[in-house]
């Protein structure tokens, strides 16, 4: 049943990859704000929203 080692290995590699991505996300500050993104995605790209977009970026 050496296939189990291989599948476990491949699955672990995937998991490690995802762990790396997770750590990157944390360190990159992706999850520092866990509310605004859910609202921001609702804005449509019409020109009316231009101002609000600018404001948000100025804060950063």
């Amino acid at each position: 049943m050496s296939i189990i080692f291989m599948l476990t290995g491949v699955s672990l590699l995937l998991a490690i990859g995802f762990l790396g991505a997770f750590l990157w996300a944390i360190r990159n500050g992706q999850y520092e704000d866990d509310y605004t993104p859910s609202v921001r995605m609702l804005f449509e790209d019409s020109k009316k929203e231009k101002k609000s977009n600018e404001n948000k970026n100025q804060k950063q």
Partner: protein
Amino acid sequence: MSVEKFYYDNSIVKKFAIVTVMWGVIGMLVGLLAASQLVWPSLNLTSWLGFGRIRPLHTNAVIFAFVGNGIFAGVYYSLQRLLKTRMYSDVLSNINFWGWQLIILSAVVTLPLGITQGKEYAELEWWIDIMIAGIWVVFGWNMFATILKRRVRHLYVAIWFYIATFVTVAVLHIVNSLAIPVGFTNSYSLFAGVQDALVQWWYGHNAVAFFLTTPYLGLMYYFVPKAADRPVYSYRLSIIHFWALIFIYIWAGPHHLLYSALPDWAQSLGVVFSVMLIAPSWGGMLNGLLTLRGAWDRVRDNVVLKFMVVAITAYGMSTFEGPMLSLKFFNTISHFTDWTIAHVHVGGLGWNGMLTFGMMYYLIPKMWNTKIHSIKLANYHFWIATAGILLYVVPLYWAGFVQGFMWQDFNEAGSLEHKVFLDTVTKLRPFYMMRAFGGGLYIIGALVMVYNLIKTAKAGSFLANEEAEAPALVKNAKVHDDGYWHRTIERKPVRMLVLSLIVILIGGLVEIVPTLIIKSNIPTISSVKPYTPLELEGRDVYISEGCYNCHSQLVRPLRFETERYGEYSKAGEFVYDHPFQWGSKRTGPDLAREGEGNPKQHRDDYWHYEHLMNPQQSNPGSIMPPYAHLRDSEVDVEGTKAKMEAMVSLGVPYTAEDLANYKTSMDEQATKHADYIKQNLMNKGFELPDAKYQTLKKSKMIALIAYLQRLGSDIHKLEVPEEETEAQPNDNSLTLK
């Protein structure tokens, strides 16, 4: 800070949306044909329309063509808007589109022709597998490059779901498709028997997870808030359940192999992870539904939301049912019965289908800058589809229980109540009729949508390049250049992540796979021998006709199964099975012990001949397709040697002598079977002229019968040699090392 002007690419979304609907209808119609064949077997009109070839066509079409194109349509639409940028490259987008359609067309041609690898949902032949890998990489490349040139620093949760989808599907597909090609129409899985089964269901389970679930969760997180015009219930929950889901899902595959020859500990591990999956799955489901809290009035008025609410509810139901089915108690009944089919259609018709429909009703009016042509028709579609789902799954659940319990029934004398398998099949006919009716309704609903969407598009004007504006992304101030070359890679974590993963995987696979796999295919039961050349050809016929779609080859160690079929299946019996053929559904009886020497039951060559020629004549009420065409189709003897050589390279111990004399061996064995059939035909008063006898002898029919007579027969030859009985007094006639 300057505001940049750019354009979203709507053309690519339009293309994918059109083919999603088109392939969806086609795939469902093929499904309706398959469902009808189970009621009226005379619908198995030709060899290429037989159920065993139509069913893989249906599954591949709805998974990879309908859902696959749906994923691309949704991702290409939402990714651009979430990242405030156009797709990285229009050329890559178009290669993705046309390449994927070419793959689908290849499937449409090869599957009905019986060109298949014989592994469920991974039937496509090796060269199509390579195309899939290539096009998938193009998709990933395009996606990651778009992520890198984004104008929004934060990656919205939907994008994480897309990333997980890309990475995992790539790995699963490559590992499960590893095979040795023999020409363009044949190939043998690198793995054998129980190992192949484990790889297959590691793939099969995660294909459900990462092709039918994670991308659609991503789409849910984009389209539900958009359609409801309110933020998702809890963004924090979405992040938590995403990471939990992807870390747990990958370990749950073995629940597809409960009571099989897979080691018990591996089975139990799969069960534990499957049960844990309820939490992250329901996290997503609740998050989707609760997004509408306090706004359920919008669901009443908004047809897009109606579809999505049913989709999310179906997701919740099937992700609750999944863990339940992975418990051995339920699995005993559900496995091999229509319960499984009902379960996957709650997911397929409910979750994937309804979410796709909702997405289409949202996308098409948006991109054509108009309103849905008829809300009323869309509402009709919604109700027809919902009713269709119910009429589809309820009869099948019922059928699953009925058949599952009939198989288990013992009478007071202690023998099987329903000894004749066919009795448990004819009982299901009314349920199959209702199922076909329910499926038919669902398709009518989809056709109503097609009409409605075409009308909608005609009323509006398509906006190929949608103008948008957003400020450029400010570079992270923390990054500073100190002159080291690898800083460029390090600064791009996504790219680095992907690159390193690919590097590790390729290295690992190339080094480990061949050595490990081939070594561990050493036989563990001394009497289990490789298939003879004729049986090998017969096995290819079995695979090509898709017999595994209805016949399992796995007797579970349960009394009602060993009573019906004989000795339960052992891992050591399958070491030469490239690929394994355990199957997942018993529309017909199990065939693991079909071969000669089974004390429980035996059918001779002539019975098989008559039965394959006309199943309904041998077994009135049978729903098996006829295989008379096999009698007139010749085995390509010249090609057999290449097949044997491929097997040798996979570790099957054919000797040089076997290879040199394979033609004689085939001829002798074929003569034996053909003579027996001829004798019986003559006894019944039929003539078999010599020309016809010669055709029969060389036919695929004889090869298939030879294979069937070999199935599971090797362990009967292991008749308790004296010394081994002493060594293992408790072992019932088997030497398992």
